[in-house]
């Protein structure tokens, strides 16, 4: 086994780190603390943040996963991972992963020439962002049960229905909408993907607050009309389009850069002379951290092996599912351990003076539920590992929900 990066990958990682060293200024960090800016619309963003993202976009990084022939960078899965890992580790804002890693490449691969011309340049420039319109009240883990429908009326699709957990809907430009275009076809086969401009008449965005202090949204569609050629690729292929990039997305949601940062930040806080941790608690905590260290090391290798397999042209579904549930279970444990180490002081959250790790562990602890159920619940991921990785039989007609 050789886990060393290729010269091209290592140079890319260096480029990203050098960029963050320069551009992630104290002024920018100051406006990022607390993460509240993410709940705002684009117009209310701090200028430091706007400038930072514009610099990133100028380098073409919003199009890192779009093939070069369509104006992107055509980076490998390993390189894409290294970028988001570095941003998460350093606490830097970054492009929306779903738009960058999933929607862009899907339009490039499956869209018509006209669709590529219409959306890819803006996506690469960071001006087009998609909100993921997958889940509904009746279609969570069982995504194929979705009901939102689009009916062809002359040259337009007329859309009615609603979508849940649209995290980006309050600042995205488009909805990446999975909807039923052939109601007579069973479950997976009647679904299409339509790009819907989010300022279309008939769209209502309702804010949904979360315990993890990150806003999400419910989006309602009432007789929303979009031109027929906004249906991406082929009618009825939406399920395939939504599930093609799943392995990469599962590694993405595992947030291994964040995991590494939380680990290193916890041990750094423990080493501070004024951490307030007694000798006896320090001794026990050191042992628990050693246990967690072995798992952090293992999970990074698990992710790298999966990404490498993607770059070999394989479909490592079971490996990606394994990495997803292992990493997010570890995040839950690590956050819990970090809170315990620093005791009552851990109740201080982001932005409050004296908060251990500047509130990172406290915030991750509240976001851990999302990591474990999001991107396909960890239970579904285990089903996938057992069924596809180890050929365990499925019960009756039930099948593994294959969703994000």
């Amino acid at each position, binding site marked *: 086994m*050789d886990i060393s990066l290729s010269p091209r*990958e*290592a140079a890319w*990682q*260096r480029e990203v*780190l050098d960029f963050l060293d320069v551009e992630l200024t*104290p002024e920018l960090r100051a406006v990022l*603390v607390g*993460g509240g800016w993410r709940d705002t619309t*684009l117009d209310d963003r701090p200028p430091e943040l706007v400038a930072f*993202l514009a610099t990133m*976009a100028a380098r073409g990084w*919003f199009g890192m996963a779009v093939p070069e022939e369509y104006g992107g960078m055509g980076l490998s899965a390993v390189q894409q991972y290294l970028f988001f*890992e570095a941003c998460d*580790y350093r*606490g830097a*804002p970054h*492009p*929306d992963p779903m738009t960058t890693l999933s929607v862009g490449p899907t339009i490039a691969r499956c869209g018509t020439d006209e669709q590529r011309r219409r959306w890819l340049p803006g996506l690469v420039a*960071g*001006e087009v*962002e998609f909100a993921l319109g997958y889940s509904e009240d009746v279609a969570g883990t069982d995504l194929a049960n979705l009901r939102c429908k689009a009916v062809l009326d002359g040259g337009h699709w007329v859309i009615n229905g609603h979508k849940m957990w649209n995290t*980006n809907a309050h*600042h995205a*430009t488009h909805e990446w909408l999975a909807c039923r275009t052939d109601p007579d076809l069973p479950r997976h086969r009647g679904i299409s993907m339509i790009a819907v401009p989010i300022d279309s008449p008939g769209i209502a965005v309702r804010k949904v607050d979360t315990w993890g202090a*990150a806003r999400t949204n419910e989006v309602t569609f009432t007789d929303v009309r979009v031109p027929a050629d906004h249906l991406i690729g082929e009618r009825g292929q939406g399920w395939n389009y939504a599930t093609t990039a799943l392995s990469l997305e599962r590694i993405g949601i595992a947030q291994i850069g964040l995991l*590494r940062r939380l680990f*290193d930040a916890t*041990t*750094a806080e*423990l*080493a501070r002379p004024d951490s307030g941790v007694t000798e006896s608690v320090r001794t026990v905590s*050191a*042992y628990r*951290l*050693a*246990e967690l*260290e*072995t798992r*952090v*090391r293992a999970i*990074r*290798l698990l992710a790298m*092996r999966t990404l490498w397999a993607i770059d070999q042209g394989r479909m490592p579904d079971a490996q990606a599912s*394994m990495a997803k*549930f*292992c990493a997010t279970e570890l995040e839950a444990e690590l956050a819990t351990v970090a809170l315990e180490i620093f005791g009552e002081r851990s109740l201080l959250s*982001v932005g409050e003076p004296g908060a251990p790790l500047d*509130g*990172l562990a406290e915030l*991750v602890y509240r976001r851990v539920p999302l990591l474990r159920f999001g991107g396909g619940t960890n*239970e579904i991921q*285990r089903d996938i*590992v*057992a*069924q596809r*990785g*180890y050929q365990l039989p*499925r*019960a009756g007609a039930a099948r593994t929900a294959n969703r994000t």
Partner: protein
Amino acid sequence: MEFDEAPELRTLREAARGLLTGLAAPAGPGAPEPDRAAVWAAVRGQDWPGLAVPEEFGGSDAPLAALAVVLGECARAALTTTLRSTATAGLLITHHGSPEQRQRWLPRLAGGTAAAVTAGGAAQSGGAGGAAHLVDSGGKALLDGELAALPDLDLAELVVAVLPESGSGRWRLCVLNPVPDQVRLRSAVSGAPLGQVRGADLGHDQIDVGPALDPQARLHAIDLVAVLVAVDLVGAGEGLLARTTQYVRTREQFGRPLGTFQAVQHHVANMAANLECARLLVDDALAALDSDRAAHRAVAAAKAYAGRAATAISLMAHQLHGGIGYATESGLYRLSRRVQSDALLGGTATEHLQDLAERYRSGPARTLELDALDTAPLTGAAPLTGATSARPS
């Protein structure tokens, strides 16, 4: 980056699996224990004992990864731990013996003379399976105390032991030969009887004392022993998981295969994740030892994780097999007992974790130093910033 097994290693693995399948003792009612001597005789007929021994001493000079392939297959088949002990002895002498010791012992080991071995557990362990140490007796070395629990002593003709020296506290690589007649073999819980060597039974001429090891060399000796036991744990874990998935695919209760129950699938997924994490940590530790990368932390992590993982896999394999796995006639216990002893040999998880924990007990702060990302110290605070678009406002 490369995660696939190299073609020559895959060929070696297939050959080893074929040979070992032929040697496997049958299970079933009244089936005898595998004949350790017969299996060892078959294995030593291969060039495996000398795989990692330098060519000049009659070995194949193969990389550690090749040795690991063969040892992993032995564990998967629950056959011969003598090969591991003998190969480890060869590595210890190759890296830490005197030139005379290499000349004298390596050709014999490469030729299939069996050895038992100990390097004193983990860096945080007390000593070599007991409180044995070297004492000076008129300019010659004697062993004081006893090596209480040496695996594979039943077939061994020599013992390679890294032992502390009374007074100086320095560690030396010693070869004990011939093994005294008074050796007592005990507990067969591991499938490989543990043997006890008492210092009082060893004369001057039975102790070949090598040079003192500096602290780095002693850690390296510990790492060599530990990593090959960890390889064994992964092999045994793989055998347990393969048997278990095979069983739950076909065994029916309530009119359907056990493997269709989600609870069973989740147990299998957890076993698989545990196994794959252990495998990657062990492969990484082997690669580090075979390169100039710092290896000690990777080895400690691998042995600690593999010990805990294989133990959990073993317990769950029994849970999913139910009664038939508990019955010795199924043969499942041959893998389980191997895990039971491997988890305790070459340093326990607790000992290796204590070693890793030292950094966190006493500071100063250091990152994990896994790659370029964490070589620079953590700066500033910007918890959980995350994604957005760059559309100009």
